[in-house]
């Protein structure tokens, strides 16, 4: 067991355990002089949104493909920030996985992203909760950027 003692406050901008280069990027940006702050790009915004999800406990599967998808579906990014809270409101503090589904044989290289909700509720109860989540939030959003965002259930 390791015990860390700190005598001054520390901002943990990047939690431990990130294997992505983005974490080095964030650290480097923080230690550089303010004059060298970088231009904000889609990739920085996407990294930021995915880091937000990670900090909420969401597991990102194949993050390189997810990042590529979000670059081309940038309008969806704003909604990703709302997802953990919406799911937790209906399902409690459950594990969430964010991944990309591609069908290379489908029309126009069909792709969608999924939040997989792991639940120990009964299938009936979980489906009811998911319908409520869809009806009360997702389907109310009149924005085509959200059409490629879906939820699925994984029964623990």
């Amino acid at each position, binding site marked *: 067991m390791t015990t860390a003692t700190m005598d001054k406050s520390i901002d943990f901008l990047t939690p431990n355990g990130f294997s992505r280069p983005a974490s080095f990027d964030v650290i480097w940006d923080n230690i550089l002089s303010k004059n*060298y702050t970088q*231009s904000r790009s889609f990739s920085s915004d996407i990294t930021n949104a995915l880091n937000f999800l990670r900090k909420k406990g969401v597991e990102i599967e194949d993050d390189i493909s997810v990042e590529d998808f979000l670059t081309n579906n940038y309008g969806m990014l704003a909604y990703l920030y709302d997802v953990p809270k919406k799911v937790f409101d209906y399902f409690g503090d459950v594990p969430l996985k964010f991944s990309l589904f591609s069908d290379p044989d489908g029309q126009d290289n069909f792709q969608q992203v999924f939040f997989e909700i792991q639940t120990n509720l009964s299938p009936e109860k979980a489906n009811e909760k998911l319908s409520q989540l869809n009806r009360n939030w997702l389907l109310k959003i009149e924005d085509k*950027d959200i059409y490629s965002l879906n939820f699925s259930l994984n029964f623990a």
Partner: protein
Amino acid sequence: MPKTYRNPPIIEAVCEFRFELSGKPSEKQIATFYEKIKSSFPVSKKGKVGSIELKVESDKSSGKNQMTHKENFYDFDQYFSQDEKYSVQLDGGRVSIHRIKPYISWTDFSPLIKLVYNSYIKSFTPIKVIRIGLRYVNGINFPAEQFIFSDYFNVKFSFPSLVEKNQKSIFIGSVFEQEKGRDAIKVQLVEKQGTQVSERAFVLDFDYFLTTPFITSDKVEKWIEEAHNNLEEVFESVVSDKTRILFDK
């Protein structure tokens, strides 16, 4: 004459301006700005940025660490071209123009930068330009089999006791002064850790920016052209001929 490739590796190109304003932009100013760029950016959307700040502080009385957790969000305006490949982000004193893959050319991109810049100046009348940045994020994939870094990049770094062909992940970055300290270029070369074992995927990221806010608004267009020329020169010097072949396939 800018160099063009059949398959440019550019994932995203961004030109970002940060200005000092006399106050918070009004709805009227934002509407005036949008009216000026609307024909090129007809799709309007709200963007959102969020962060979670985790702070660990020691409680002097108990001697234990306490963690606090704060979520911060804010919205900004964004405007997209019809095909959503070009976009503008407007965020108070910050405005940026983005192009995502497939990048066409500088000749295609720069008039939009100038349109957005001039529209911003006329609509918000900023006090001064604080920062200008021109950033190109490139994604380059190579076959993993017998991959040797120095075959593809003219970048020198080594760890004498370690063997180059055994290198499994790379993260290199540096900031260089340009134009006698007026500008700087931040270069990053990162290997992405993907799931495709048959490929090595690299992100080569160049951010060229103004470091000293002494530029007058009539010199901005000239600065952007110089920045692009300097960036192009750096890019061409970093990639080897073997890599360049991939861009023309």
